[in-house]
């Protein structure tokens, strides 16, 4: 029985991609594949200039949903390590938002496990984005059908 090491963090602090990668790899000779994804703030979204991004979440539920998704991924693919880091609070263009990383003996499991985690995180984890434009006005983002479609392919 495989035991997957899972780490989930939600908070306002930035993360260090090298440190996250190292945590997937250190003292790990079982895994030949590491796949990670980093989501960042863009300065343009749906044709609108973005000066700031506020991320709200549901404390408590957020962490348990991410933990549950990581466990689902670990049950579905042979992943030895899974790390999910998501920031909340006030961010700006080029800031990092999310890190999802997995390690596995094999690359296809690593690709699929990481893609699954990102796709399902986007439709099930209780985070909400509010963008601020150049004139200081802000607007909540609407969920996208394309994200729902991507998540549904894993059902």
């Amino acid at each position, binding site marked *: 029985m495989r035991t997957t090491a899972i780490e989930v963090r939600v908070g306002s602090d930035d993360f260090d991609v090298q440190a996250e990668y190292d945590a997937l790899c250190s003292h790990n000779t079982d895994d030949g594949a590491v796949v990670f994804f980093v989501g960042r703030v863009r300065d343009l979204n749906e044709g609108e200039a973005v000066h700031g991004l506020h991320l709200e979440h549901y404390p408590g539920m957020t962490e348990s949903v991410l933990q549950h998704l990581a466990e689902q991924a670990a049950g579905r693919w042979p992943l030895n390590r899974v790390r999910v880091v998501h920031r909340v609070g006030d961010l700006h263009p080029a800031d990092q938002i999310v890190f999802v990383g997995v390690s596995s003996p094999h690359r296809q499991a690593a690709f699929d496990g990481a893609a699954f985690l990102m796709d399902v995180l986007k439709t099930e984890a209780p*985070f909400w984005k509010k963008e601020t434009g150049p004139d200081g006005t802000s607007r909540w983002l*609407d969920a996208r059908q394309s994200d729902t479609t991507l998540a549904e392919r894993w059902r």
Partner: protein
Amino acid sequence: MSEPVQVKFFARLREELGVSSLNIPAEEVPDLDALLDWLVKAHPQWQPALQGKLMTAVNQNMTSSNATLLPGDEVALFPPVTGG
């Protein structure tokens, strides 16, 4: 008197309603449908916001059916999520 049902609102919905949480006597809201009826009855001006596309969680688990509610339950209503 039994523990109330606590209702939390997030993001755009929280701003539209102007409140982040409230308590309802558990005996008045036996399930989620009754809870929504209770909210609209108590706050008719909330009806448009509550009729929008919303997600629901009971005790921090997403639910899509008309779940039964018990004293002390935590219900959350919020717009479709947009993280990642």
